[in-house]
Each structure stands twice: as structure tokens, then as C-alpha cells.
């Protein structure tokens, strides 16, 4: 009977269909092919290591961690409780209790949510004893940052929860984890953070844990974050911040022999403790929203100012290098410099026959305008001249990013021939068109840190190390690029006459900073007064000049190079000069002798000046 065959065929057919279907779901279909570690039945539990501490160059603690205690609640597990006792323990009222409970219930009855965040240590101690009475509540410890010194918020940055973009960019992070958002917290995130440990826990269908997955072969231990030692000198930093009180601007001090940043002050600033834990969200709105004072804007790194007179040093150095001047070259200065048909660059009142040394310490505009012109005109075309000049200037680290480890930074601007070709499409520009560059006005823009670095290069007589903020990572060497010497295009012998001039800025009785001289320290420096403009109501309006000062000391074997910018500080020796010399004195001697000057800086305020700006701005707005 062939009828028996039917069953064979049906069985075989079903078998083939089954195997086909299994082949599809077990091998082909990616919808179900999930990693065993990334599966609903496996929960990852993270073990967060402690974030690294941060110290200053002398071992003073700048950033530490503190425990914060959050009271969590799982609404479903809460049993009737003595609300009054509970509220008393936590120092909350009943309305707050009810409101929080309702909020937690709305979020989820099964999942924990924060009931009271950051319970104080004292309350925590009492609460812990009685917590067993309150089912469904538990304490979650979290580590948050603490800043014992309350300084250098711009350098240190802060940490906050990762945002969605960061989670998508970097698979390391999960929702709710913390990440460095600014300063070294950001640039050294990987080192400070350490690596979280992962435990794989098996769960059943009710999400209950039923033991470790494969006895933990996939689990990893947490690697603690490494401690950082910064190049900052906490004392100097603190002092600098005090000096800059009620002023806007920045101070950067660098150790020329290493490129280590000793202080990086921006003003106005804020107490780093304001950006910790619960306070952060409120304060960050406040700080980022302050468009007048911009406390989150690191002026020392990001503000691009015209460098003003300190730039004359470079003009002089380039002149010497290009052999268009020497120490005895004399230019005439009749209270200014006439060029072209109408051009005139004013100058201060001083003797008219100007040599290099004299030109520097009196900050003679005419001398350097002449020098600049000679440099550019030495070549057949202004293009060639301009580019040579550009090359020299850039070798001092200007006009480019440092690519260093402080977060943020600007390029500044050092124009070259192409830049002017764009400005003058006819390409008919000559040296005189760009003459303002000679004295650091014109198109040149620098950030304070670039200027400080330039000062360090001068102090070193021709080289610098890229300024950096981290001195030591526990057990790791710092980035090699910070130990590579960057050599300028100026030969060493040209520095001596220039430095002598800078020295005479203090020592000569006609020097522009003669009055800021410090007994016993051989300081070399240069004042600067930079014109600056803003647009008010569409009109280019000149504002009060910036007060600028650069200096290094001692003259031989310099230990500190410094640049100070004070916005709208009238002239160089009024604010920036004293601040720079006080900083140097403080750093080299550990104390300051000129208390009257110090007090004047501590208490001096430019707030009125800034208010004036605001007023004129508001008036202009009002007119509309």
C-alpha cells in the first residue's frame, strides 16, 4: 500500500520546515542575535572608581571628592511610616514630603527615585540609625567634587552629567554618569575618571537578581582615577585673583625654563564650589547667562586683544634679525611719525633722536614704525616682506593654537600677505598700509596666554616650551610635546640689547614703568596701552584703552614670565604694571613690600568704567 508514503513525506516536510525556521532565527535573523552580555537577562552593575584628586605644584590640594548622600525611595516598597518623625529627621515639612512622594510615584513605583538629594552629613548620621523603620527608603552615596581653595575655577572646570550627544559619541558613558565639562576636568577626563568596573548580574523575568553571570568571567574591576599635579602655584593664583578683583582681564604667569603655567587668572570668575552637586544647575544658568561679566569666559585664554606696545619688542627683534637696524641706528621722532601723504602716528613727549634702547624704554612709536617699514621694504615686494615678518612673529607662538592641555584657547591673528590681499583686492598695499602692526595695534590680535608665552620666549632668549597646566600625572609622564623646545627665528645675540631695553623700562628714570620698580628684583618688562573699539549702535566707538603689561624676572635666569591684561584700564602702568610686578614679587620673594600698591589693586575697581560702557550701550538701544 503506497498510502503509507504520505506520512513519511509529511514528517520529512515538517522536519525541513522546522530546521529552516530554526536556521533563520538562530543564525540568519539579526533581530534576535544579541550579545549575551547585552541581553535583557543580564544586568550590568557599574562600580564607579573615585575620581582623581588635583594638587598644585607645591602639593596643595585643589580638588578633592566629598561624599554626598541622596535619600532614595522605591514607592512600591514603602510601608506606612511615622511621617512626623521622618520629616523631623530630614528637616523637611509634610508638604514637601507629600510632593516628593507623589513625584516619585509618578516617575515609577518600582524604580528608585531621589527623594531628598544631598542630605547633610549630620542628618545622614541620625537618619542611618532609624532608616530600618522606613521601608522603601535607602541612602545612596555619591561622590561629588570639592574645592578646598576656592580658586582657579577657569583652570579646573567642573563635572556634570553626560548629555545625549556625549553618550552617542562615546560608548563608555551611560545616562546619569558624570563627565568633565571644562578645564582640566575635560582635557584630563580619561585620567581623572579612571575606568568603571562592570559586574554582570543574571536576572529573572521579574528583574530579580539571581547571581553573577558565568561566575564573573566578563566582569572587570574598577580602575581608580589618577591624581594630577598641576603646574599652578595656588598661592600665586589666589593672589592674582585678589589683585584682579572688580576688574576684567587676565593674568598669565609662566615659568620660562619649562613652559609651566604658574597662574592663569581670569576676572571676573566664580567660586568652583558653586558648580558642584545640586547648586550647579541653578548656578550654571546664572553664570552662562551673565553676558555682561561673562564669568564662564576665560579671558586669559580666549580673549583676543590687540597686544599694544609689548609687541614692539618683536618688531625690534625682527629688525635686528633682518639687519635693518642695529643698536646705534637712530630715528627721528617729532612727537610722532609721518608717513605717506596723510599718515601720522602720534608719540609720547620725549627726545627726538631715538636709538633702540631708548625706543624701548620710552615706548617710542616712531622708532618701531620705522623699523617695521624697513623690514617690510627690505624685500622687493611687500608680500615677501609681510610673509617674512609673519614667519618671525609666528615663531613666538602667536597667531596659532597652542594645542595644549588647558581647555579653550584662541588663535589670535597675525596677518600675512594673503590676509591683506583679501582686504585690498587690488593688491596695492604697501608697508605703510599695515604700519600699525609695528606697535601691536593694526590687525594683530593675541590672547593673554600667547603674550605671556612670547614673554617667556624673550626671557629664554629665543625659545619656549608650549605652556601647559599639568606637571605630573601619577605614574605617567606628561605629553612629550610639552618638553620639546620651540625655537624662534631670532638669533640669540639679538635678544641682549632688547632685554637691556626692557630692563631699562624699570631702571631708567624715564622708563615707562620706573615707578613700579621692585627693590632687589631685576625685572624686565614692557607697558602696553591698547586702543580698542566696539560697535555701539552700528558706529565704531573707541573705548577706554586696555592696560597691558608683560614682564619677566630676574633678568638673568628668569623664573617667571608674566602677561597682564586689564580691560579698559586706561594705560599700561596704571593697573597692569603694578599687578605684574606684585605678582613677580610675590612669586620670587613670597611676600610683597609695597602694601599701599597692593591695597590699591585689591580695592581698585573699574566697575564704573564698565558701567559707563553699559550705559552708552543702553542709551543706544534706547534710541531705537
Amino acid at each position, binding site marked *: 500500500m503506497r498510502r503509507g508514503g504520505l*506520512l513519511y513525506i509529511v514528517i520529512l516536510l515538517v522536519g525541513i520546515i522546522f*530546521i529552516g525556521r530554526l536556521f533563520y532565527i538562530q543564525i540568519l535573523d539579526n533581530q534576535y542575535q544579541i550579545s549575551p552580555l547585552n541581553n535583557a537577562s543580564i544586568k550590568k552593575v557599574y562600580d564607579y572608581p573615585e575620581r582623581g584628586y588635583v594638587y598644585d605644584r607645591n602639593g596643595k590640594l585643589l580638588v578633592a571628592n566629598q561624599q554626598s548622600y541622596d535619600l532614595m525611595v522605591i514607592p512600591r516598597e514603602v510601608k506606612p511610616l511615622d511621617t512626623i518623625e521622618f520629616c523631623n529627621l530630614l528637616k523637611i515639612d509634610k508638604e514637601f514630603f507629600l510632593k516628593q512622594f507623589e513625584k516619585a510615584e509618578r516617575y515609577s513605583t518600582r524604580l528608585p527615585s531621589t527623594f531628598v538629594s544631598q542630605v547633610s552629613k549630620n542628618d545622614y548620621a541620625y537618619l542611618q540609625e532609624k532608616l530600618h523603620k522606613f521601608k522603601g527608603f535607602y541612602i545612596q552615596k555619591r561622590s561629588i567634587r570639592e574645592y578646598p581653595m576656592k580658586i582657579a575655577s577657569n583652570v579646573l572646570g567642573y563635572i556634570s552629567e553626560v548629555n545625549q550627544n556625549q553618550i552617542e559619541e562615546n560608548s563608555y558613558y551611560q545616562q546619569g554618569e558624570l563627565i568633565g565639562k571644562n578645564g582640566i576636568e575635560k582635557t584630563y577626563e580619561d585620567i581623572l575618571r579612571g575606568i568603571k568596573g562592570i559586574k554582570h548580574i543574571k536576572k529573572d523575568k521579574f528583574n530579580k537578581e539571581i547571581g553573577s553571570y558565568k561566575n564573573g568571567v566578563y566582569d572587570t574591576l574598577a580602575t581608580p582615577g589618577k591624581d594630577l599635579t598641576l603646574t599652578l602655584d595656588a598661592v600665586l593664583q589666589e593672589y592674582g585673583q585678589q589683585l584682579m578683583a572688580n576688574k576684567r582681564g587676565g593674568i598669565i604667569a609662566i615659568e620660562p625654563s619649562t613652559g609651566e603655567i604658574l597662574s592663569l587668572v581670569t576676572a571676573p570668575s566664580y567660586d568652583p564650589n558653586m558648580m558642584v552637586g545640586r547648586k550647579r544647575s541653578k548656578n550654571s544658568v546664572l553664570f552662562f547667562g551673565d553676558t555682561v561679566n561673562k564669568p564662564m569666559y576665560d579671558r586669559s585664554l580666549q580673549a583676543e586683544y590687540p597686544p599694544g606696545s609689548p609687541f614692539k619688542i618683536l618688531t625690534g627683534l625682527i629688525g635686528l634679525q633682518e639687519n635693518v637696524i642695529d643698536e646705534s641706528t637712530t630715528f627721528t621722532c617729532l612727537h610722532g611719525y609721518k608717513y605717506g601723504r596723510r599718515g601720522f602716528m602720534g608719540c609720547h613727549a620725549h627726545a627726538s633722536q631715538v636709538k633702540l634702547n631708548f625706543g624701548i624704554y620710552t615706548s617710542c612709536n616712531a622708532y618701531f614704525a620705522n623699523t617695521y617699514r624697513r623690514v617690510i621694504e627690505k624685500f622687493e615686494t611687500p608680500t615677501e616682506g609681510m610673509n617674512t615678518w609673519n614667519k618671525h612673529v609666528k615663531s613666538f607662538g602667536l597667531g596659532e593654537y597652542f594645542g595644549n592641555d588647558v581647555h579653550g584657547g584662541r588663535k589670535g591673528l597675525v596677518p600675512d600677505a594673503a590676509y591683506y590681499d583679501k582686504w585690498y583686492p587690488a593688491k596695492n598695499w604697501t608697508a605703510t598700509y599695515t604700519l600699525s602692526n609695528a606697535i601691536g595695534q593694526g590687525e594683530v590680535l593675541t590672547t593673554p596666554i600667547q603674550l605671556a608665552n612670547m614673554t617667556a620666549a624673550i626671557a629664554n632668549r629665543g625659545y619656549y616650551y608650549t605652556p601647559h597646566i599639568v606637571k605630573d600625572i601619577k605614574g605617567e609622564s606628561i605629553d612629550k610635546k610639552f618638553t620639546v623646545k620651540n625655537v624662534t627665528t631670532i638669533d640669540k645675540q639679538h635678544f641682549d640689547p632688547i632685554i637691556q631695553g626692557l630692563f631699562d623700562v624699570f631702571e631708567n628714570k624715564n622708563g615707562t614703568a620706573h615707578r613700579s620698580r621692585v627693590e632687589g628684583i631685576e625685572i624686565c618688562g614692557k607697558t602696553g596701552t591698547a586702543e580698542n573699539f566696539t560697535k555701539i549702535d552700528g558706529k565704531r566707538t573707541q573705548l577706554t584703552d586696555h592696560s597691558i603689561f608683560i614682564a619677566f624676572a630676574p633678568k638673568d635666569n628668569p623664573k617667571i614670565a608674566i602677561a597682564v591684561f586689564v580691560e579698559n584700564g586706561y594705560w599700561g602702568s596704571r593697573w597692569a604694571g603694578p599687578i605684574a610686578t606684585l605678582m613677580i614679587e610675590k612669586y620670587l620673594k613670597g611676600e610683597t613690600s609695597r602694601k599701599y600698591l597692593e591695597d590699591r589693586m585689591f580695592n581698585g575697581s573699574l566697575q564704573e568704567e564698565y558701567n559707563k560702557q553699559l550705559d552708552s550701550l543702553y542709551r543706544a538701544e534706547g534710541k531705537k
Partner: protein
Amino acid sequence: MGWINIYAASTSEEHTEVLDFGAVYGKQLIWIGLAIPLIIIVLFIETRFYERFASLFYIASILSLIGLFFFGKSINGAQSWYPIGSSTLQPSEFAKAFTALAVAKLLSDKVFTFRPLKNHVKAFFLIFLPAFLITLQPDPGSALVYFAFLFVFYREGLPPYYFVVGFLLILLFLSTLYFGSYASIPIMIFAVMGIFILILGYLSVYNRKTLKRSWLQFLIIFFIICGYIFSANFIFNTIFEDRHRDRFNIILGKTNDIQGVGYNTNQAIKTIASGGFTGKGYLEGDRTQGKFVPEQETDYIFSTVGEEWGFIGTTFVIIIFIAFMFRILHVAERQKSTFSRVYGYSIATIFFFHFFVNIGMVIGLVPTIGIPLPFFSYGGSSLWGFTLLLFIFIRLDANRSYEW
């Protein structure tokens, strides 16, 4: 025959090892232990005894099924168990074996043929009586097994149009459901009408005689089908319970509620899929240990195989089952007595039905019907039931040389 023994034993063992659930695991070992004396008893009893008392066994099992309504214990809403101490016994598992014996007895009757319609009724009554009783428990899944006997009847001479009609009815039923609402019924009817017109058209060209003779029959059949289409929806929406509807809808892809009614199937497929090609290794199935698949030690045991042994394991199990059923069919075909042959056929089809429905359900090809996978699923009654089924046959086969 020996290899079947070994096979049965070894798979049973494998199954108990696969599961690592203290009590369940232990209990199953006891069941297996107790299955051995059962095997011995079964093998010792004279072949003739089975044949002679087949009717008696059948009546006894029917009585036990009826008895359930009075003494039965209700588990998961079905009153299908007799409580015995701390354990339970499910008579419907044994009824299968005894029904198989009764069917064999009936069909081996020398005067029995499928020619008179009266005999059709007799045979169908034999299988539908226990099916009906089991449905009342209610355990419609187990009752469906009795449809497997249709294959046996076919083998023994049941006209094939039962299959054709049955197949068509199921197809129509499913497609009516698939195309869903009442609104689509006219479309279905037009489609059927189209098919009929094609057939009539064919006949009018090539076979006018038949057309003339039976155009009325065609018309009647057409209306019956239309009525059936209407009633399919009616049956589905009113007679079926919610859960049955859900199960059909899942398979037809009409609902995709993986949190609710589709949870079992979805989790089972995920679990099997997570095994990949080689599986996670014995006792390493995290989803099994997380008990993500409900009923994973009974009806959904195959998902554990899939997770821990992977594609290799599942394919192996399927091939073994196919080989096992082929072997039974082969042995059945070589029987000299009709009784043994029919009985062999019966158990092959029962195994096949279980195999088809259970694995099909776990891998999401068949609507959820809760019946066990032979020798794999946990459950003493089903283990004993299948043991009984199998070893009676082995006993019958051992005797074939002395048969008349």
C-alpha cells in the same frame, strides 16, 4: 529495537539534566525510575492480551476521563488531573495509548473496511469520544491530538477527500481570519466565485457531460463555502475564547503584543535565537535560568535546547525525532498483523502530532497549543503515556514472528 530503548532513556536523561530545578528535576527522575517497572510489566504481558482487552482498556480510559469531572483536580483552569499523594496523574495522556489500541482493534477486524459510511462513523466515534471528553475539561490542546488518527484511517483506506476537504476548510478558515473583518468577506466570496467559474469554464470546454450532470452539486458546494466563510468569522469571534483568538492572531501576524498575549512565543523565539549556532553551552543558558520563557520545563522545553545547544542541538533533536518516527513507521509497515500495524501507525502519528505542534509552537509557526514534547517535557503522566505507547508497540513487534 534496542536503539529506541537507549534513545528514549538517553533523551529522558538529557532532559532532566538540562533542567536544573531542584524539585522538578528530582520528581522527573522518580518518574523515569517508575517508568522502568512499567516498561517491564508492559513487555511481560502477552501480546494477545493487548488485542483482546483493547476495548476494555478503551472503556476504562473513557471512564477515567469521565471520572475527572467528579474527582479531578483543577490546575491552570483545566480539570485534567487525578491527585495522587503530592503528585498528579493526567489520564488523557494514557487515553491516547488506549485509544490507539482500540483503533487498532477496530481496524484489524477482518470484516472492517472503510467502504460503508457506517464504518466511517464508527471509527470517528472512537477517536472523537475521548477528544470530546478532554475538550470538556477543558484541554482542547490535548484533544487535538486525536486528529492524528486521521492519518491512520487514511493509511487503512479512508478516502483521501477527508484530507482534501479538511485541508481546504482549514485553509479557508485561516485565510478568512487573515483577511480579517466582515468587510473583506465579499472579496473572499468573489475569489471563491472566480475559482468556481474557472472550474466550470474548464468543464464546459472539455467535459460538458460532467457539467450537465452535476451543475447543481457545484452550486450547492459553492453556497456551502460561502456560508462557511461567513461562519468562520462568526465561530472565531463568538465561539472561540479570547485566548484562542489571540493565539491565531499572533501566528497570522495580526497582533504583535510581545508584552501580553505574544509574550510566550516572543520570549521563546528570543531564547532560541540567543543560542546562535553552537549554543551557550550546557547549563549556561542565562535566559533559561532567568525563567524568561514561561512553562519552559514543560511545553517550552525546546527553547532551552535552542539556547543551550544552539542550532546544532535543535537540528539534532529534530533529526532524531524524524528518524524515530521513520523507524516506527518502518517497523509498523513490516508487521504481519493488521492490529500491530495500525497500532504502530497510531503511535507514529501521535508522536508526529506532538512533535509538530510543540516545536512548531515554540518556534512560532503554529498557534500556541499546550501539548508536551515526547520524552522531553517535564511531566510524569506524559512520560508514562509515551512510554506505554512505545513499549506496547515494542512488545507487539517482538511477537510478530509468532503471529498468525
